[in-house]
Structures are given as structure tokens and as C-alpha cells.
């Protein structure tokens, strides 16, 4: 142990003798390790965000959304045409009755209506759904409560607002129990939930900032299935029964089977493809596969830079062995064994590479931090990447130091002593 600490001190001393050379040699390791950590953290951050979004949608869920068929847009009269498409109430019943693996289905109906409270007026996206929606889509309750099963059975005029909308409509966000007029009907604000910006790419959850959640039966009765949209001089009328259907299976093993079944069923009952299935689990798997590929590619690039760093170290150590041939001869003449010469040089390279690794580690942590700070990109520095890159730098010191060290030890002491 004492010998080791003495050897390390001697190694550091020798390295300090050529400060510039040591620093330049170390740069290879610094950048290698730094890039490994930085790349892994950026990759980890990007995929973690995507995975988080997908996971929120639930790995047991199948989300079926209504989609306006493409060919529909060109038919009918320009002034007033009625497009009928999308999921039907009957679809929900059929799905829950056909597949025993289905735990429950949650229907979602979207209606655009003006909401007013006192003098405040704003366009709301009314989401007609059931209490179960709040079970599937975990949403933090800011005040009051979410929709309950009895709201539906008792035809309660209850509305749950998202925080963002509530703040704009109500004087203070915690004021629940106030009457909110949606269309021609009054509802009591029973709860406020946290709004969450949905960024899950192709997936659309009925969860935008100014949402008002009401029991679906009220939405259906009061606002009907037909909506009118006026755009650029033409009136467009749409009849959509359900905008979204979330199907939860009993276990995530059933997801794929049920999804295939639902797809086949919908194909049979719908003339056009006016729906779209998205399976968070499949997306999750896809994202994970992408992440793996990403990591492999980034890892290889970083690995190459580490390799280059290692070769740099070997190069310098070979030069150092040449330079210190005489010293090696002296040590051998005095009685140093070959193994002791190897140890001496190996410790020097390991100190060099590990020191480079530690500096690289600091830089590798600072880079993602800077990226997050200035570019707002999420980055995650994992303990694994730190441990990995430090052990790699240690290993590189050993692997690339071994050859020069063995070469030093193999020198004939007589020849080494004669060396000038």
C-alpha cells in the first residue's frame, strides 16, 4: 500500500516534469470522457422525456381517435356540407362487450363552446367524459374534486376546469363552486386540475389548456353530435359521436391482441378509415428501441474518441520510455525487478488517464448542464455513465500503458545503462 502511494507520487512527479506534454496527452482523455458523458446525458434526456410522455398515456391503454377521412373533404356542396365520421357510441359498447380482456372503456366527446362567468368570456373546449378518464390520465387536483360516477348518474351540472382556464375565468384559482355558463347551461365548478402541455407527438389527448370536463351524458344531450365550424366563408358541419375512446386492458400483455381485434372490428363496421389507433405500449417499445440505437451510435463515436485518447497516451509513454532508458537501466542495476519497472510506468499511465478522466467527467457534467441552461433541452447525467466513463479511462490507462511498460521492463540493463 505504501509502495503504491509512493509509486503514485513518483508517477505524478514525473508527469509534472513535462507539464505541457502531460496536459496535451491528457486532453485526449478529457475530451473522450467528456463526450461520452455529454452524449449519453443528452440522449438519456431526450428519450426520458419522450418515454415519460408515453408512459403517462398508460401502458395498458389503447387510444382510438376519430379522424376525418381524407376523401371526405372534396365531396358535397361548398356552402353547407355535413361530414359524418368518427367513432360511434355503439363502438364503445361493442368493444367492451366483445373483449373480455378489456377492463374499461372511457369515451371522450369534444365540443367547442363559449364559456362565461360573470363578465369573463372565453372559448372553451368542452370535454365530455366519465369519471374514469381521471383514473387513466393522472392529473393533479389543484382544488375541489374531479368528476365522479354519481355526476353522471345524477345528471349533476358539474364541471372541472384546468388550472389555466380557471385562472382566466375566476378571480382566484381556488374559487370553486361558482357558476360557469357553457352554451346556455349553467354548471358548478367542482374542481380544478393542473393543466399539462401535451407534447406526445402524434398522440392527442383531450387535454389542452382551457378544458372544461363535464359528464359525457350531459354533453351528448345538451350539445348533440353536430358541430358547426365557420371558416373562410364556408360553413362546415361535422357529425361526430365520439372523438376519442380510451380502452384499458386488464394487463399490458393483452394490449396487442385487443388492439388487433379492435382494428378488425372497426374495419368491419366503418366504411371508411375514420379512426386511428395508437398504442402507447408499442410507442414505448419503439421509443426504447430508438433510444438503444441512439445510445449505440453515440457510444461508438465517443468510444472512438476515447480510443484516440488512449493511443495518444501510448504514444507519449513510448516516447517517455525511450527518453528514460537510462533511468530504467539504473533502476534495474540497483536491483529493481521487471515487474517493478512495469508497475512504475503503468501507474504513470493510469494516473494520466484517470486524471484526464476526472477532468473529462467534470466537463462532461458541465456540458449537459450548459445545454439545459441555454437551449432548454432536457439532459440526464446518469450515475452509470459516470462510472462507465471513469472505469473506461482507467482501463485505457492499463491497456495502452501495458505495452510501453513491458517494453521498458524488457530493456537489457547493460544496454540501457550505456544509453545516452
Amino acid at each position, binding site marked *: 500500500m505504501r*509502495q503504491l502511494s*509512493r509509486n503514485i507520487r513518483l508517477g505524478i512527479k514525473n508527469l509534472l516534469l513535462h507539464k505541457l506534454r502531460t496536459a496535451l496527452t491528457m486532453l485526449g482523455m478529457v475530451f473522450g470522457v467528456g463526450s461520452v458523458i455529454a452524449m449519453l446525458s443528452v440522449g438519456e434526456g431526450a428519450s426520458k422525456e419522450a418515454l415519460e410522455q408515453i408512459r403517462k398515456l398508460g401502458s395498458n391503454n389503447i387510444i382510438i381517435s376519430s379522424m376525418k377521412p381524407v376523401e371526405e373533404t372534396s365531396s358535397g356542396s361548398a356552402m353547407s356540407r355535413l361530414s359524418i365520421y368518427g367513432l360511434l357510441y355503439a363502438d364503445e359498447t361493442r368493444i367492451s362487450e366483445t373483449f373480455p380482456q378489456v377492463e374499461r372503456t372511457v369515451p371522450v366527446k369534444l365540443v367547442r363552446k363559449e364559456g362565461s362567468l360573470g363578465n369573463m368570456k372565453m372559448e372553451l373546449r368542452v370535454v365530455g367524459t366519465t369519471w374514469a378518464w381521471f383514473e387513466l390520465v393522472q392529473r393533479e387536483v389543484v382544488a375541489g374534486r374531479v368528476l365522479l360516477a354519481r355526476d353522471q348518474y345524477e345528471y349533476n351540472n358539474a364541471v372541472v376546469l384546468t388550472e389555466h382556464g380557471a385562472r382566466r375565468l375566476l378571480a382566484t384559482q381556488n374559487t370553486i363552486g361558482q357558476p360557469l355558463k357553457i352554451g346556455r347551461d349553467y354548471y358548478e365548478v367542482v374542481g380544478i386540475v393542473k393543466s399539462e402541455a401535451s407534447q406526445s407527438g402524434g398522440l392527442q389527448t383531450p387535454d389542452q389548456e382551457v378544458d372544461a370536463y363535464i359528464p359525457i351524458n350531459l354533453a351528448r344531450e345538451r350539445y348533440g353530435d353536430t358541430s358547426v365550424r365557420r371558416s373562410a366563408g364556408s360553413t362546415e358541419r361535422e357529425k361526430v359521436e365520439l372523438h376519442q375512446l380510451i380502452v384499458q386492458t386488464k394487463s399490458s400483455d393483452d394490449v396487442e391482441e385487443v388492439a388487433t381485434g379492435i382494428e378488425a372490428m372497426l374495419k368491419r363496421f366503418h366504411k371508411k378509415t375514420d379512426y386511428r389507433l395508437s398504442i402507447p405500449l408499442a410507442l414505448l417499445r419503439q421509443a426504447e428501441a430508438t433510444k438503444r440505437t441512439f445510445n449505440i451510435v453515440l457510444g461508438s463515436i465517443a468510444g472512438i474518441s476515447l480510443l484516440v485518447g488512449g493511443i495518444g497516451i501510448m504514444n507519449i509513454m513510448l516516447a517517455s520510455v525511450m527518453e528514460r532508458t*537510462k533511468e530504467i537501466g539504473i533502476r534495474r*542495476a*540497483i*536491483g*529493481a525487478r*521487471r*515487474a517493478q519497472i512495469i508497475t512504475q510506468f503503468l501507474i504513470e499511465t493510469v494516473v494520466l488517464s484517470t486524471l484526464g478522466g476526472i477532468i473529462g467527467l467534470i466537463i462532461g457534467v458541465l456540458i449537459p448542464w450548459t445545454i439545459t441552461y441555454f437551449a432548454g433541452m432536457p439532459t440526464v447525467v446518469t450515475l452509470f455513465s459516470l462510472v462507465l466513463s471513469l472505469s473506461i479511462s482507467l482501463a485505457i490507462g492499463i491497456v495502452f500503458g501495458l505495452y510501453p511498460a513491458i517494453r521498458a521492463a524488457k530493456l537489457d540493463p547493460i544496454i540501457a545503462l550505456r544509453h545516452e
Partner: protein
Amino acid sequence: MSAAATHTQTVVQLSSVCKTYLMGTQQVKALDNVSIGFERGSFWALMGPSGSGKSTMLNLLGCLDRPTSGTYLLNEQDVNTLSDDELSDLRLKYLGFIFQSFNLIPQLTVRENIELPLYYLGWEPEECTAKAELLAAEVGLKERLNHRPTELSGGQMQRVAIARSLANEPLVLLADEPTGNLDSSTGDQIVRLLQDLNEKGKTIIMVTHEPDVAMKAKQRLYMRDGKIERMEGV
């Protein structure tokens, strides 16, 4: 009984030792059937023109090389049969080297240079320090312990080298032209130091070119063409 007595007297024994080198395709006999014993407490000067085999002899005696044939007994151990590590251990325990060009390690201080054999012997740092101070005092360099070799004069460097060679309390001190790089008065001082050491009982074998230096040794060995030409003072 008498055999045991001879063994304790003779520290180093060469018996019909040959050493041949391959120079290109030609075999060169650097040592040709040399037999000689060096006794405890002797001070030998090895003389001879270059190529006479005295350096080869010193390398063999220093366990840096093995004889091609014949036996070399160092403290009753046959060097020929030993592994590389065992040769290292032998050098570490029984031998001290003094070189023409001093051969101090420039990045180490005087103290660290002197401590070097003790480090390989596995001494504790405190013991090393104490011993290094003792040795430095013995060669008259106590104040220079924390200097670098490059800050010293030639004579001082050779004193450090002598102190280092003494650190392991060797059986035999091997000197390869210790005055070769020094002016004559400094050289004289170094030879006097060696004489002092010999008087205290150290066995010394010294290669030299200079006849007046050789004359200060107790015994002289003249070599020519790998053979012992003559001996003086035996």
C-alpha cells in the same frame, strides 16, 4: 573446515568463465576461460586496453549478465542458474554500483537517489530517511540532501552515487571508471573515499584506465584479449 574458511574469505569466485558475443556472424570471445577469486576486504583495480574484456567482467560480476560457460559464485550462489528476478534480488542485496557517468536519476533529489535501493528493499520511509542522512554525512554531502543532481558538481554527484551504492550495505562495490569524468584532484578525493571505505572492510572492484588511480588499489589485475595477463599485489 578449511574449505569453509576459504568460502568466507572469497566473496566472488569465477571458475573457467567464458563469455562470447555474436557480432554480426562472428563470434567474439570477450572472456576466455577466466578463473579468479576476489577476497573479502580486497580492493582490486581492473586494467587493460579497451576490448580486453574488463567491462564484460564487471557486468558479469555485477550480475547484469550471465557467463556463456563456467561458473560464477557470488556469496556461494551460482549465478548461472538464477532467473532474471533472482538476479535482480542478488544485485539488490549484495552489490553496489558506481559508474563513470554517475548515473543519478535527474528528476529525484539527492535524498531520493540515495534512498532508491532501500525503496526496492521495501524499507519504511522513516528508516530510509535516517539511513540516507547517515550515508550523506559519510560522503560529506549532508547539506545537499534536498538538491537535484544537476545542481551538484561532478565530484559531488559521484559522492551521491557512492552513498547510493552503499545504502544496501553491499558485499561488493563495483566501480566502473569512477574517476573517468572527473578532474584529477576531484578524482583523487573520490579514490581516497574508496580507500577509506576499503579500510573499513568494504570489498571493491574497480575498472580504471588511469595507472596512478590503479596504483592506489591494493591489488591490480591486467587483462588482454579476454584473458588475465597478470596480477599484482596478491
